[in-house]
C-alpha cells in the first residue's frame, strides 16, 4: 500500500491475518521485524524501524488494566487477536470499534470550490484552519498543486489531506515514469479513491476535489473514458449533461469539426469523435474518503459550501471569461467566509489551463469587507440624496 511505504502503515487486511498468530510467535514476529527493520534490507518500506520492547508493552494500552466482558484476563490479552497491537512504530492502524478517544480536536472546517469553464478550471479556497473554536492557522494552504497540470483542493482533516496529497503526487509521478505519460485526472481520482478505500469506516476524513487539464493523448483514451458514457447512476446525470453541453460547445464554436461532417457519421463514430474531443481538456473530480468519486462541472466542499453554491449556481456558465470567473470565485468564497464561522481570512485562487496552473496572489478578504462597507454606505447616501431631491 502506498501509505505504508511512506508512514509505515500496514494494510488493514494484512493485519487481520497476521494478528491471528497465537502468543508465542510474538517473539518470532518481533525478531523478524528487527531484521527487516534495517533500512536497506527491507523492500517494503524505508520507514520501518524498530525499538526493542518488553513483551507486555506489545499489548494495546487500550486493553491494559481493563475488565471487559469479552475476555477474562485484563493485562495478558494475547489470546485476543483483534486488539493485539503494538503501540510502537510497527503500529497497525486498524479500525477498532473501541478506538481511543482523542484528547484534542482535529483541524476541520473550510470552504473550497472549483468549476470548469471555457478557459479551463478555476479553483478557490479560503485559508482558515480551525480546531473546534480556535483558529489554528489563519494562513493555511488548502489548494495543493500535485503536478504541473493537476491541482487538489483539500477539505477535512488537514493532516489527512496533506499526507494523502503527498502520496498521490508520488504515485502519479511513478506512473509517469513507468508509462511515459501523465495519468489523467480521472485516473488520479480513481487511484486516490482506491487508496482511501481500506480506511473506510475509520475516522480518516479527506474530501478532495481534483482539478486538472488532461493532455491530448488520443490513442488509448477510449478505454478509460468509455466508462463515462455509460457510467453508473450517481455519475450518469452529471456526465450526460456535461457530454451534451460539451458537444454543443464543440459543435457551435469549434471550427475544426463541422456540423455537416458530424451528421454524416454513424452514432458510434459520433461517440468516438466526442470521446476524442473530450480526451483533452479541463477535468474536475470530487473524491471522498467514504468512497464517493464524482465527475462534474462545479463542486464546492466544506462547511461554507452552501453559501458558495448559491453564488456559483447563479453565475457560473461555460462562456465565462477568465476575469469573470476569477471574480465569481472570489465572490463565492467571500460570501461563504462572511456567513460561515469556520471559513475566513484570505482567499487563494488557482487557474488551470492547458499550459498548467497559475496562482493568483493570496488576497485578504478583510479588504473586500471594508470595500463592500464603503459601497453600501455610498449607496445609502445616494439613495438618501435621491429621496430628498424628490
Amino acid at each position, binding site marked *: 500500500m502506498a501509505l505504508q511505504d511512506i508512514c509505515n502503515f500496514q494494510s488493514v487486511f494484512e493485519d487481520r491475518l497476521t494478528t491471528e498468530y497465537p502468543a508465542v510467535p510474538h517473539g518470532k514476529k518481533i525478531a523478524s521485524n528487527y531484521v527487516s527493520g534495517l533500512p536497506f534490507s527491507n523492500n517494503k518500506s524505508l*520507514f520501518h*524501524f524498530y525499538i526493542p520492547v518488553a513483551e507486555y508493552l506489545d499489548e494495546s494500552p*487500550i486493553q491494559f488494566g481493563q475488565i471487559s466482558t469479552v475476555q477474562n484476563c485484563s493485562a495478558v490479552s494475547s489470546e485476543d487477536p483483534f486488539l493485539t*497491537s503494538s503501540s510502537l512504530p510497527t*503500529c497497525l492502524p486498524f479500525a477498532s470499534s473501541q*478506538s*481511543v478517544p482523542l484528547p484534542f480536536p*482535529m*483541524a476541520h472546517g473550510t470552504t473550497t470550490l472549483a468549476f470548469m469553464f471555457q478557459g479551463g478550471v478555476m479553483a478557490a479556497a479560503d485559508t482558515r484552519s480551525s480546531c473546534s473554536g480556535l483558529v489554528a492557522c489563519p494562513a493555511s494552504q488548502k489548494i495543493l498543486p500535485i503536478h504541473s497540470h493537476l491541482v487538489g483542493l483539500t477539505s477535512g482533516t488537514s493532516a489527512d489531506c*496533506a499526507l494523502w496529497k503527498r502520496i498521490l503526487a508520488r504515485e502519479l509521478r511513478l506512473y509517469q515514469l513507468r508509462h511515459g505519460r501523465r495519468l489523467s485526472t480521472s485516473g488520479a481520482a480513481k487511484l486516490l479513491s482506491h487508496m482511501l478505500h481500506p480506511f473506510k469506516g475509520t475516522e480518516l476524513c479527506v474530501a478532495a476535489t481534483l482539478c486538472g487539464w488532461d493532455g491530448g493523448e488520443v490513442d488509448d483514451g477510449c478505454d478509460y473514458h468509455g466508462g463515462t458514457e455509460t457510467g453508473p447512476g450517481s455519475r450518469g446525470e452529471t456526465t450526460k449533461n456535461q457530454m451534451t453541453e460539451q458537444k454543443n460547445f464543440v459543435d457551435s464554436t469549434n471550427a475544426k469539426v463541422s456540423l455537416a461532417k458530424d451528421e454524416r457519421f454513424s452514432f458510434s463514430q459520433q461517440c468516438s469523435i466526442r470521446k476524442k474531443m473530450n480526451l483533452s481538456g479541463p477535468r474536475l473530480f470530487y473524491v471522498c474518503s467514504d468512497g464517493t468519486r464524482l465527475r462534474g462541472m462545479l463542486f464546492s466542499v466544506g462547511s461554507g459550501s452552501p453559501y458558495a453554491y448559491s453564488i456559483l449556481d447563479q453565475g457560473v456558465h461555460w462562456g465565462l471569461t477568465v476575469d469573470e470567473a476569477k471574480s465569481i470565485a472570489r465572490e463565492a468564497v467571500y460570501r461563504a467566509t462572511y456567513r460561515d464561522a469556520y471559513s475566513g481570512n484570505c482567499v487563494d485562487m488557482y487557474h488551470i489551463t492547458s499550459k498548467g496552473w497559475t496562482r493568483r496572489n493570496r488576497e485578504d478578504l478583510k479588504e473586500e469587507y471594508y470595500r463592500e462597507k464603503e459601497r453600501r454606505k455610498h449607496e445609502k447616501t445616494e439613495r438618501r440624496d435621491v429621496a430628498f431631491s424628490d
Partner: protein
Amino acid sequence: MFQHFGDPGKMKDYHYTGPVEHKFSPYAFNGGTVLAVAGEDFAIVASDTRLSEGYSIHSRDSPKCYKLTDTTVIGCSGFHGDCLTLTKIIDARLKMYKHSNNKTMTSGAIAAMLSTILYSRRFFPYYVYNIIGGLDEEGKGAVYSFDPVGSYQRDTYKAGGSASAMLQPLLDNQIGFKNMEGVEHVPLTKDKAVQLVKDVFISAAERDVYTGDALRVCVITKEGINEETIPLRKD
C-alpha cells in the same frame, strides 16, 4: 426549599444518579507552553519548565526544548510520555540519516520526517504539540509548527501548548504587526525578540495555571545554540 427537610432519603437531581464508568485513557495532559520565533538569521525556541498533572506539579525543572542538531531545536508539549518517546525516535532517525547519507538533516527535512512519523500513528496519535525552530539551508530562521497528527507548515512565529491560545494573538500583534493600523513594520532583531519572548511568557504564567516555574530560551544562530534560563512565577 422546605420539602428537602420533609423527605430526606430521596435523591435530588443534583445528587449522585448511579454508577459512572470511567474508561482508562492512555493519555494524560502534562501542561506546558512552547514558543518559537524565526528571525532573519536566528531562531528562538522557548518553553516553560513546569510539568504538571491535574492539580499537582510533578517537576519544576522539566524543560520542553530538545536539541536535535546544531541548527535545530524542537519544542514538545502535551503528554510527557509521548514527548519523550517522540524525541527518542527523532534522535534515532537523525542518527540513521547521518549514517546512511553522511550529512546532518536540515530543518526542513526534519519537519517533513516528523510529519510522517506523527501520521504513522494516525489512529492512536502522539498527544504532542510540536514546534521546530532552526535555521534553513540559507541560514534564515525557520519555524515549523505541527498538529498532533502531522499536519505542518512553515511559519514566522508560533505558540503551542496550554497557553497557546493566549500567546498567539499577542505574537500576531507584536511580531506580525497584525490588527493594527498605521504601524511601521520594523524587522525583528535578536535582542528584541528575546526580550519579547520573556515578556510574553511572564504574561502567560500570570494567566495560565500550567505555565510557570522557569523559562528556558534557546537562541539558534549560525554560531550555535545558546541556552538561557529565567525564573517565572512558582505559584
